[in-house]
């Protein structure tokens, strides 16, 4: 008789749910998740996987072989290039840190004058395409013709050169001058977060400003310094333009220029893939090492109510510190841009603009009206970058939403995939794209699509970091308040969430757009004759050796970038590029 008192079953279990019923409980986010997984696999996993596979394939037959590795590491010259890349990456990264850390400290913590100028210089160095800076520095520091050396000889009467851009230190310096803003951004945001009380606590115990800075402030931002330096190192070893423009006359072969040689006839993607592996391993290794290094210590300073943020008074040191920032700023931006502009208006740049009859607009009119590819490359650049930025931000915001709101199990796998390109050097990614999608069945080589896809994948982490910060800033209760009133999820996202994060997404879009518009390292392997971008055309022009036209094209590139940044500042706030996510 006991059976009669069993509890009534829940209504849902009472009858087996039909398909329709089940669909009612299925959130559309599950389908979206599946779609995103496929997209991310296509953009990230397949190219890198293909790269790995190809490195073990025999050309033509596809049979398994180790000979690619034997070829790739079988010559002293190839190994030297690898070594050169490591030394170059290390020196540039350290040099960039030397430039960036004092500047970040001065801007964030002290009463140094001219902070606005310093800020502008960092911004300028950040948006200046590195290969353009390299051209500028050739004009400045060519051992015989460079303006610096000419001035040096004129002042001192010396025979020799003061500086020589065609040298290892020259190459490292030019790279550092255009990568230090990354460290600056990291370190400055970290410094901004440290409460003055951290320093006050050291001061009151007997530490002077310098001791407190050395023993408390700098150790606190050490992760930011380390992180920034590592990013510069990784960017440097994957950089193509500057080593090609300066390294060849300086006779310095590095991994990227060597990779380019493997793409000479006959194209040896297999060997290139094998040769690219160290870049990938080094990157992954360093990121892991960094995680281990910073594992235990807490670096986020405990933020209490905190007192007012106290500015360190530099006293008489205000001006020397400013001078330091001014020197770095002028080396990174003012001087190269000045010589580029002067030579872009010159018939013969070495004679100086004031030389009689040397001034001309011809370099610009040639590019704008007589050059077949200049305008189309500008157009290509704009729409590839815009499309890639749109795709990246769209994917990023969907992934970020799913991951942040924990809508599906294993959502974090999506986040991992979206961030993965961060540890893949751009040039490696480009070779992966070439290996995976250039040939049939997809046959994307030479199409705009392959470039757009590569740009999308390459800059996805930037968009993702930006989007997750934006989504996290919207408290879930804002959405819950809408849903409890009957708004569906999609309607809620459209009406509540999207307007709240629109501005920061726009900022992210512009950053991706700008970095994509100047990207050379990956584009140079993927462009076809009709899909050349400004960066690639500029590189081609640099091969033709006409510095005046080259400078004029650089001037156009800079003008376009400046316009974009101007629009960005207007729409997304003054600091949209230097905000750290």
């Amino acid at each position, binding site marked *: 008789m006991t059976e009669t008192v069993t509890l009534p079953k829940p209504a849902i279990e009472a009858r087996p749910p039909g398909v329709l019923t089940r669909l009612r409980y299925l959130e559309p986010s599950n389908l979206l998740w599946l779609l995103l997984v496929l997209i991310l696999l296509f953009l990230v996993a397949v190219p890198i996987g293909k790269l790995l596979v190809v490195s073990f394939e025999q050309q033509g037959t596809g049979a398994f072989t180790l000979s690619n590795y034997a070829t790739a590491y079988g010559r002293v010259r190839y190994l030297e290039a690898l070594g050169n890349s490591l030394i170059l990456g290390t020196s540039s990264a350290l040099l960039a840190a030397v430039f960036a850390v004092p500047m970040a400290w001065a801007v964030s913590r002290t009463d140094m004058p001219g902070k606005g100028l310093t800020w502008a210089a960092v911004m300028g160095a950040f948006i200046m395409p590195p290969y353009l800076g390299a051209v500028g520095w050739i004009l400045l520091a060519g051992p015989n*013709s460079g303006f610096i050396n000419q001035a040096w000889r004129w002042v001192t009467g010396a025979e020799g050169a003061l500086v020589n851009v065609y040298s290892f230190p020259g190459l490292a310096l030019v790279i550092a001058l255009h990568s230090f803003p990354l460290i600056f951004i990291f370190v400055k945001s970290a410094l901004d977060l440290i409460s003055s009380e951290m320093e006050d606590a050291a001061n009151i115990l007997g530490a002077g400003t310098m001791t407190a800075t050395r023993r408390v402030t700098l150790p606190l931002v050490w992760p930011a310094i380390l992180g920034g330096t590592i990013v510069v190192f990784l960017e440097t070893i994957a950089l193509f333009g500057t080593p090609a423009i300066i390294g060849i006359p300086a006779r310095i072969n590095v991994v990227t220029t060597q990779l380019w040689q493997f793409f000479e006839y006959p194209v040896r993607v297999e060997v290139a893939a094998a040769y690219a592996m160290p870049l990938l391993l080094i990157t992954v290794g360093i990121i892991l090492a960094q995680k281990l290094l910073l594992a235990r210590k807490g670096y986020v300073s405990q933020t209490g109510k905190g007192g007012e943020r106290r500015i360190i008074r530099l006293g008489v040191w205000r001006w020397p510190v400013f001078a330091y920032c001014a020197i770095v700023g002028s080396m990174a931006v003012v001087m190269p841009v000045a010589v580029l502009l002067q030579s872009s208006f010159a018939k013969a740049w070495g004679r100086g603009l004031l030389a009689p009859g040397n001034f001309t607009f011809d370099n610009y009119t040639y590019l704008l009206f*007589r050059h077949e590819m200049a305008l189309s490359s500008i157009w290509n650049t704009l*729409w590839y970058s815009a499309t890639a930025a749109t795709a990246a931000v769209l994917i990023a915001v969907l992934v970020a939403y799913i991951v942040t709101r924990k809508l599906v199990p294993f959502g974090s796998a999506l986040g991992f995939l979206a961030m993965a390109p961060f540890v893949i050097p751009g040039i490696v990614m480009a070779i992966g794209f070439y290996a995976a999608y250039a040939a049939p069945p997809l046959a994307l080589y030479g199409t705009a699509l392959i470039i757009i896809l590569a740009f999308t994948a390459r800059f996805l982490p930037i968009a993702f970091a930006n989007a997750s910060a934006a989504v996290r800033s919207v408290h879930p209760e804002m959405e819950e308040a809408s849903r409890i009133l009957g708004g569906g999820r999609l309607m809620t996202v459209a009406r509540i969430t999207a307007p709240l994060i629109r501005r920061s997404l726009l900022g992210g879009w512009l950053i991706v757009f700008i970095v994509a518009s100047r990207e050379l390292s990956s584009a140079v392997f993927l462009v076809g004759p009709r899909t050349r971008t400004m960066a690639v055309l500029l590189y081609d022009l640099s091969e*033709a050796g006409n510095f005046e036209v080259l400078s004029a094209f650089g001037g156009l590139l800079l003008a376009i970038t400046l316009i974009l940044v101007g629009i960005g500042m207007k729409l997304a706030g003054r600091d949209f590029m230097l905000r750290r996510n």
Partner: protein
Amino acid sequence: MTGVGRRGLLAAAAIIGATPRAGAAELPPHEQELYGAARREGEMTWYAGQLSAEPCEAVGKAFTERYPGVKVNVVRSTSQVAFQRLAQDMRAGIAQCDVLSSTDYSHSSFLKREGRLLAYRPKNADGLLEFVRKAGDPEDHFHVFYIGVHLLARRNDRVSEADAPKSWKALTEARWRDQLAVGHPGYSGAIGAWAVLLRKLYGWDYFKALEKNRPQIGRSSIDPVTTLNAGERSIGVAIPSASTLLSMSRGNPLSLIYPEDGTVVVPSPSCIQKNAPHPNAAKLFMEFATGPEYFRVTRAFFNESLRADVPPPEGSRPLEQVKVIMPTPEEIEKGVPEVKEQWRDTFGI
């Protein structure tokens, strides 16, 4: 909408908008016939490793002016890079290039052997100088409408005529240390041909001796002209006469030196790809480039005229009056890959 698509539309709009041109009516019949077919294709792509950037663009413009509605995508780069792009295309199984012009003979002969070239004999080629006609393929897979004349140049203000090196051999003298500038055989077909010829003359040790003088290495063969203009170096090695003369005309203080051991002449072939996406436009381009109009355009940029009906450029010595050395296609095809590797081992780059 793609960039090309948009450009195509613009071009179409230009044709529709333009008044019927007299030029088209004046074309000789064989060109007129090709023009009709080419116009339907609308464009062609020229991988140009010859000429410098500006004359390349001028040629593209002149072509479209003569044949309205047919646009030339000029992809100007060094010869090796042009061929590298073509090789990448082939590897990917994509047809993008119609005509390849390179300063490296072996590119064309390789492509011919691989059966990747379209045989076509431009009627206008009959008007080319005889030695040029002979440098082309007897089976019409490639033709020569450009020769590189590679020699030495000096900065007048740094090196007097009396002091100047008179030969390739003289460049290994210690007094030219840090004075020389040269291109790279890995990037420039002409430099490859030059290196092959000098290796034949003096052996590879010549380059080892040259390396001791630390020449500044550029990429294209034109790079040293820029280096000279800038005053970075004072002697340009294996520089093309055309670019140098153009530079001189702009007021740069340079002088040509015809080396006693032989001015290097590099006949540079151009070929139509069998898988050319615009075969008729490509053929029309070959007609154009072997005809007088092409040489009138390039002559203004100090390139050699290869037709009797167009005079040689201002300031150049007639080639009959100097000692000329010219590589055979076989020498180049076999030699250039070798010297590229040797070069990289010797110069480290």
